[in-house]
């Protein structure tokens, strides 16, 4: 500020006429500098926008992926680099140290972004009999777990081999697929689900069209040759996804990826690509996005196992998934392949087996099973309608249920945590484990069994029919989904009602309030994901699609298996708040880590000796430094060149306070000669708006000061020499505007405080902004800070984003049209005059209320209404 004042003083005293040629060269030079200055401001604006985006997502309420993280960090770096470049141009290389600081910071950001997976194994394929849980980094979680069960526990699983993570990397590298995939993700507009559909389809097509490298093809063929063919002489395999990164703590990845059943030898390579491509199925993309998984961290290994042509199959849990206190084994069973249970596509039997004192069936529910899946003799599976007695017959004998429960307990004991296990029984009665993974168990709902009093106007629609697939309560409008295209129109906060609990509906769980299905058990994939996302779900509700009408508002009480018409607050009152699924996830952690080098602002005080390039610790510090110095450099032009056309002029006005104006380009309506400029000569839209607000309501003078307030002011002035000049000449301070037609910056010392306002208002709406920074006051810290909060609340009310650190207030609003932005400037003009010295009354609540009310009335009735 002192330097600015010296510069202006010099400008006034040292003018001499310039030669015409000199003047033309200076005009050109000034235009180039002003252009660089504008570009620096645009880069600053963009940087602050990106930082605000990062801060917003780090609050944890929005899902975001690595594409967002990479795009933000690149955009921020590019814009900060541009700021350094333009400051370099304005200052003729005075701040070259900034480049070194930038390199240092960027290197740390790049380290944080680096993809950490390194493939140390070379084996493209490994036989199943060599696999155990220590090999998770080579074969993925699912196959490592299954290998452990087979090779360490000696429990029967199908024979087979695993196409490893090294093979996945080889497949990607041979086709440069990861870069292609990243490019598709970046270029896609992922805001709407229909765009995500297109993205999912494009990326899957890329993978399906890619060539399997010859080395991998040979390895797979050799591994197949070692397997036993079926009785008909053909080889039949089940290809199951085994992604690296699946089954991480508290995540299920349930059913996100494909398993392809009954695949012949000739189709294995195509089926391999299909399983790899399923990494980009719509539900998998959305799951990773909502849970914060890095795309590049998920490598797809594929288990190729001999197909078990099952007589019966299903899923069992070694404990109750919705009640931690219950250690009974829950078995869901269906005729044929376990697919019916996993897909939730039909009703299935439930056997609950208690472990103590003797293992015995505690409870069973035998459903009417309408269909089953069987293997075709050649390839593929088919759905068969069941007829006759088989529909009502239990899919397991009591002995088989006990045998399964015994295995579940063994696997649980080995892993020491409850397990989710898929199993099959062949036509010759042999029992196979097909996969196992940790089970996520929920606490029992505290209110289970107790139904709140329901008003008469809210009739019961469904009660006691169905099962709790995921606990909790919610309300919303009924939205039936029957075909996959219904996903595109599913509204936020609706209750998903479907015939079957299909895994494909999982892509809607981040938007659904609750789920109700006519078929499906709590062991299916959809139930798993619903529990993980905290979405209440009731499955196996007969005629749900007939009873629940599209568009009706209903309340779903999954704890008590009840559904009511309307919204019932008494029931909803107990609904737990959904957790933040992003927090702690790999994507969230990556952004949090690198944001340490981007977001914090350490350089707060431009008058401090520490305000130096070497002290820039973050990209934000660099923007702060570059912005501050660019303003000084623009003022310094006149000082260096003694050029009156680009010198400050005093605003001609009959007030003691001095306003100085530097015209950067087209800020005056016409050429203005001499030392003074009149308000009617000004063309700057933002300056005129600010001025309109400043002059709209006459200032009543200082607020009535009580003894305590006055003492506080005097004490502050004594202790802080920077404020002493303010005490002596509080209306004689100079305020400096830099203006063009669409731009304005103001450095001022109004009353006791120092403030900076900057605005761009043009027809480039997306580039418009108004920013306001304000620091200090003469009262003690507490009153000073109270005034900062007083102003913060007012600005927030009128749409500013406001950040307060110590006694610094930083407010910003951007992207509004001209009318909106000029209104904000008028508010700032008004506040600059009317909040001066209000720190002195901050200890008096009645006066605070009076001024708050007066300010709001003035703004609403005078400032905003004149438009």
């Amino acid at each position, binding site marked *: 500020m002192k330097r600015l004042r010296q510069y202006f003083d010099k400008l006034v005293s040292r003018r001499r006429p310039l030669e015409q040629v000199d003047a033309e060269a200076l005009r050109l030079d000034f235009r180039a500098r002003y252009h660089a200055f504008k570009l620096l401001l645009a880069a600053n604006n963009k940087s602050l926008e990106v930082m605000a985006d990062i801060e917003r997502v780090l609050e944890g309420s929005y899902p975001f992926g690595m594409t967002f993280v990479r795009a933000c960090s*690149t955009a921020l*770096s590019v814009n900060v680099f541009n700021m350094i470049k333009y400051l370099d141009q304005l200052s003729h290389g005075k701040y070259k140290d900034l480049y070194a600081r930038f390199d240092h910071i960027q290197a740390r950001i790049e380290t944080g972004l680096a993809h950490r997976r390194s493939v140390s194994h070379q084996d493209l394929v490994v036989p199943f009999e060599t696999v155990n849980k220590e090999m998770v980094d080579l074969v993925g979680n699912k196959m490592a777990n299954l290998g452990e069960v087979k090779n360490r526990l000696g429990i029967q699983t199908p024979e087979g081999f695993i196409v490893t993570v090294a093979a996945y990397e080889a497949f990607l590298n041979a086709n440069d697929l990861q870069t292609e995939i990243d490019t598709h993700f970046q270029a*896609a507009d992922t805001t709407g689900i229909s765009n995500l559909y297109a993205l999912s389809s494009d990326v899957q097509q890329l993978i399906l069209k890619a060539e399997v490298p010859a080395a991998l093809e040979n390895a797979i063929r050799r591994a197949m040759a070692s397997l036993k063919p079926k009785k008909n002489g053909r080889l039949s395999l089940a290809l199951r996804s085994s992604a690296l990164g699946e089954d991480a703590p508290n995540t299920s990845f349930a059913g996100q990826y494909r398993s392809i059943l009954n695949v012949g030898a000739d189709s294995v390579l195509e089926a391999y690509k299909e399983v790899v491509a399923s990494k980009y199925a719509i539900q998998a993309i959305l799951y990773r996005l909502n849970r914060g998984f890095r795309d590049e961290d998920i490598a797809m290994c594929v288990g190729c196992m001999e197909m078990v042509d099952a007589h019966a199959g299903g899923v069992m849990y070694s404990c109750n998934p919705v009640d931690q206190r219950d250690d009974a084994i829950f078995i869901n069973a269906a005729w044929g392949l376990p697919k019916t249970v996993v897909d939730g596509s039909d009703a299935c039997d439930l056997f609950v087996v208690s472990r103590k004192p003797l293992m015995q069936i505690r409870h069973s529910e035998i459903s009417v099973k309408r269909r089953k899946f069987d293997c075709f003799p050649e390839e593929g599976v088919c759905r068969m309608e069941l007829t006759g007695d088989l529909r009502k017959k239990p899919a397991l004998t009591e002995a088989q249920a006990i045998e399964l429960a015994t295995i579940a307990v063994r696997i649980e004991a080995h892993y020491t945590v409850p397990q989710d296990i898929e199993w099959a029984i062949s036509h010759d009665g042999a029992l196979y484990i097909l996969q196992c993974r940790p089970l996520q168990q929920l606490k029992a709902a505290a209110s289970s069994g107790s139904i709140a009093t329901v008003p008469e106007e809210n009739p019961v629609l469904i009660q006691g029919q169905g099962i709790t697939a995921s606990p909790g309560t919610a309300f919303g409008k009924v939205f039936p989904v029957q075909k996959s295209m219904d996903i595109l129109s599913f509204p936020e906060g609706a209750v998903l009602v479907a015939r079957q609990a299909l895994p494909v509906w999982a892509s809607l769980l981040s938007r659904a309030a609750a789920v109700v299905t006519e078929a499906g058990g709590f062991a299916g994939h959809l139930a798993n994901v619903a529990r993980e996302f905290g979405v209440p779900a009731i499955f196996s509700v007969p005629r749900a699609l007939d009873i629940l009408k599209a568009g009706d508002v209903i309340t779903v009480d999954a704890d008590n298996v009840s559904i009511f018409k309307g919204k019932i607050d008494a029931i909803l009152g107990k609904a737990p708040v959904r957790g933040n699924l992003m927090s702690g996830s790999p994507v969230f952690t990556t952004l949090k880590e690198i944001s340490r080098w981007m977001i914090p602002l350490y350089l707060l005080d431009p008058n401090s000796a520490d305000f130096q390039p070497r002290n820039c610790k973050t990209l934000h510090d660099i923007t702060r430094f570059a912005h501050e110095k660019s303003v000084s450099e623009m003022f310094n032009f006149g000082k260096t060149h003694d050029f009156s056309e680009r010198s400050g002029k005093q605003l001609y006005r009959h007030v003691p306070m001095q306003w100085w104006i530097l015209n950067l380009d087209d800020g005056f309506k016409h050429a203005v000669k001499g030392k003074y400029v009149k308000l009617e000569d000004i063309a700057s839209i933002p300056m005129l708006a600010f001025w309109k607000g400043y002059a709209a309501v006459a200032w009543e003078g200082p607020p009535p000061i009580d003894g305590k307030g006055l003492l506080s002011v005097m004490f502050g002035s004594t202790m802080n020499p920077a404020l002493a000049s303010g005490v002596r000449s509080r209306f004689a301070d100079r305020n400096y505007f830099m203006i063009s037609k669409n731009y304005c910056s103001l450095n001022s010392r109004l009353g006791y405080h120092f403030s900076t306002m900057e605005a761009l208002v043009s027809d480039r709406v997306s580039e418009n902004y108004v920013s306001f920074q304000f620091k200090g006051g003469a009262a003690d810290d507490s009153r000073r800070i109270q005034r900062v909060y007083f102003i913060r609340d007012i600005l927030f009310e009128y749409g500013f984003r406001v950040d307060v650190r110590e006694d610094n207030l930083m407010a910003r609003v951007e992207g509004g049209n001209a009318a909106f932005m000029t209104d904000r400037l008028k508010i700032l003009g008004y506040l600059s005059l009317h909040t001066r010295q209000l720190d002195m009354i901050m200890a008096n609540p009645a006066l605070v209320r009076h001024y708050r009310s007066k300010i709001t009335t003035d703004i609403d009735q005078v400032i905003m209404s004149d438009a």
Partner: protein
Amino acid sequence: MLAREVTVDRFTVLFVDDETDFVESLIKRMERRNIKAYGVHSGEEALDLLAAAEIPVDVVVLDVRMQGMNGIETLKTLKKRHPLIEVVMLSGHANLAVAKEGMEMGAFDYLMKPVDLDELLYKLEDAFQKKTLNQARTKNP
């Protein structure tokens, strides 16, 4: 509606991108705004076209990943041969190191796909203004 801060004379832009459809759609959208736009599909083609000097190109919009010469290689040669032409990199792949390399080689800016058309247009106008100022200063040092 406010007047544009600086009225920019119309200028000529060359799009260099191996995605044919993307280039064609950008050219059409530029032409609708009275901006002369041309497109080529490789770095080599771009350098040949500039060497022929038949079209007075002001700003080049350059993709980064292309068959043959990539965007960075093209930028390097282009800035060496035509220092006054401004280059805006437009990449489908956010990459910190590549962005920095491009900026250090004198790219005017580095944008990422998908790009908002208005944002691209503002950037092109700014780049053209810079070129005009540099040209004037070269003539009147």
